[in-house]
């Protein structure tokens, strides 16, 4: 939701980033305020997933220009864990499997690390068990997933639910969901979207990175940005996603300037 006079959570200005000497992000400007839901859309290779990883602090990318402020902090100065502790969350497109570590152990470790950072009370295994089971209901998750190894043998949909469960536990200020809808059937998509909607409130913000409009039927964005070749070429409201769905990405390429004029 767009809230009047809400504070700016994320301010990206002129951000450029490269991997192995190849420039992927070529000057990104983006402002996200609390309460807002943004969608970043684009074809494969447009740089949208790179933007998500760069914001979360992936070490493989080199920042060559620009600034990113997260509330009052210089985000680019922070290690990935400090970004997480400051309230940034990335839901991975391909969550990592960790055989040998029980999901509940991992979730509690992450939860208590963030709690300690916020000066709040940590939970012992029993207290955490009650707490996490309650959160799992939100995502219609089977409690069996607590005892299994982190993401090991989970289906695509189960992995995505597990990501949103972490988001629900860690209560970030800004969540970036990378291709949340990939590999989900319609029922799983609805469940995951419902979870995201319940977590969203006027004090936090969400960035959905997605190729398709489908997800945006269930999590309705306030802003839609279209990325091409490492830049945001168009920004509009939720209707831009619908337009894109019917007319395709070629339409954007051919008509960047006139569409921008029409929307403005």
């Amino acid at each position, binding site marked *: 939701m767009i809230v009047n006079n809400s504070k700016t959570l994320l301010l990206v200005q002129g951000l450029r980033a490269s991997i192995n000497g190849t420039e992927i992000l070529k000057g990104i400007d983006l402002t996200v305020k609390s309460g807002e839901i943004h969608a970043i859309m684009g074809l494969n290779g447009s740089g949208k997933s790179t933007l998500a990883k760069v914001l979360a602090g*992936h070490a*493989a990318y080199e920042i060559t220009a620009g600034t990113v402020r997260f509330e009052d902090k210089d985000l680019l100065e922070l290690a990935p*864990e400090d970004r997480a502790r400051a309230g940034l969350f*990335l839901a991975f497109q391909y969550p*990592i499997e960790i055989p040998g*570590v029980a999901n509940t152990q991992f979730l509690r*470790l992450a939860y208590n690390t963030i709690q300690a950072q916020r000066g709040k009370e940590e939970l012992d295994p029993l207290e955490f068990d009650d707490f996490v089971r309650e959160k799992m209901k939100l995502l219609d998750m089977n409690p069996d997933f607590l005892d299994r*190894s982190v993401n090991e043998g989970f289906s695509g949909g189960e992995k995505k639910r597990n990501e949103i469960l972490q988001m629900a536990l*860690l209560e970030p200020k800004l969540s970036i969901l990378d291709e949340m809808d990939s590999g989900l059937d319609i029922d799983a998509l609805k469940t995951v979207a419902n979870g995201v909607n319940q977590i969203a409130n006027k004090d936090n913000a969400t960035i959905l990175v997605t190729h398709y409009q489908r997800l945006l039927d269930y999590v309705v964005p306030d802003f839609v940005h279209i990325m091409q070749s490492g830049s945001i070429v168009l920004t509009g409201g939720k209707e831009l996603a619908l337009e894109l769905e019917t007319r395709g990405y070629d339409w954007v390429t051919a008509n960047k300037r006139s569409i921008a004029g029409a929307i403005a």
Partner: protein
Amino acid sequence: MSETVATDYLDCLLKSWSIKSNEPLSWLNQLRARAIDHVSTQRLPTKRDEEWRFTDISALTRLSFQSAQPHTSLRAQDIEHLYLKEAKNSLVFVDGYYSPQLSTHIDPTVLQIGNLSTFLSTHASILESHFGQYARFDNNVFAALNTAFLHDCALIIAPKNTVIAEPVHLLFIATQSEVTSYPRCLIIGESGSNVTFVEDYVSLQEAAYVTNSVTEISLSANAHARHIRIQRESAQAYHLANCAVSLARGSNYQSVSISLGAQISRYNLNVQLIDEAAECAIDGLALISSNQLADTHTSIDHIKPNGISRQQHKCIVNDKAHAVFNGKIIVRPHAQQTNSSQSSRNLLLSKTAQIDTKPQLEIFADDVKCAHGATVGQLDQEEIFYLQSRGLSEATARSLLTYAFGAEIIDRISVSSLRQQLEQTVLNQTRGNKL
């Protein structure tokens, strides 16, 4: 090293060898005499021997360790922390000598366990038919030495169609320095029996000594055995171990071996599937650091059809440590429909750590399914990033991932108190690695 030195080491041992006249059983003395003959015709292996090319034991030849003498001052409270709470039956050997005071033996009617002297009179024919029959010593100088110098043995006989729920703990404690002990185990699973045993090598001090052990396991038709082997010797110790397993029709052998201690350790595990439809699962983990060397050589020999074997061996190597794995799988001409898989996965935690892994398949049958693979690597950057993105520090992320790598093997240990102890050991050892 020179071979002259190596010969001196054996010469020295040969001189100290004698038949003990107070042991009347001729078959046992004949076995010892045969073994000492083999010692006298062999030499200590060097790196020029294919089977020892990565493992330099020349340091051993510079030591003149005598056979350990009985040492009885140990009290139960001194080793309280070593007992497993699940194990109602435990046989405790101190420097290779059986200690009835430290052992607990609850129910002799169900399970027959004890040491050599308790069984020699009552089970002579069973012992004679199994003892020394599986662990060959004609081409293995350490097995020959063990057999020549053996003075006692941990024995488990799981009677026909009997399921023993609690694990049996075979605890070998080293208390003396500059001695050699010769632990020996014989496990006989009669048909349809089911037994779990923990073979556990520990030290009460950081001393240099040699453990030369031999374990023989014979499973009759449809017998099941779970073998948990923990090597947590002193960091200065030498641990040279041979284990031979014979699997009859439809029998099932599951083994988890964990190597943590010793300056130099070598574990040879030879499993023979001598009849149809036998099955084995062999899991191993070596977790070593500083200047340790841990060498595991395994051989799984499919002799008859329809056998199943699965093997996973993992090494976590830090500092300047060196891990060796050689895993041979043999499928003989008659062993059709064999299903075998083997995986060797290795984690290097420092730039100076070293791993040599050599999976070997020797397949002589044409209708079989065999898969094997080996990986050597460092921790995955994507995995570290994932954990960091959840707020975990890089150091915590590395520890957790290293722990998880080892925990996958430790989780297969069926004795929960032991599992927890080992998980803690892995956590302590993997904390704060840098790569």
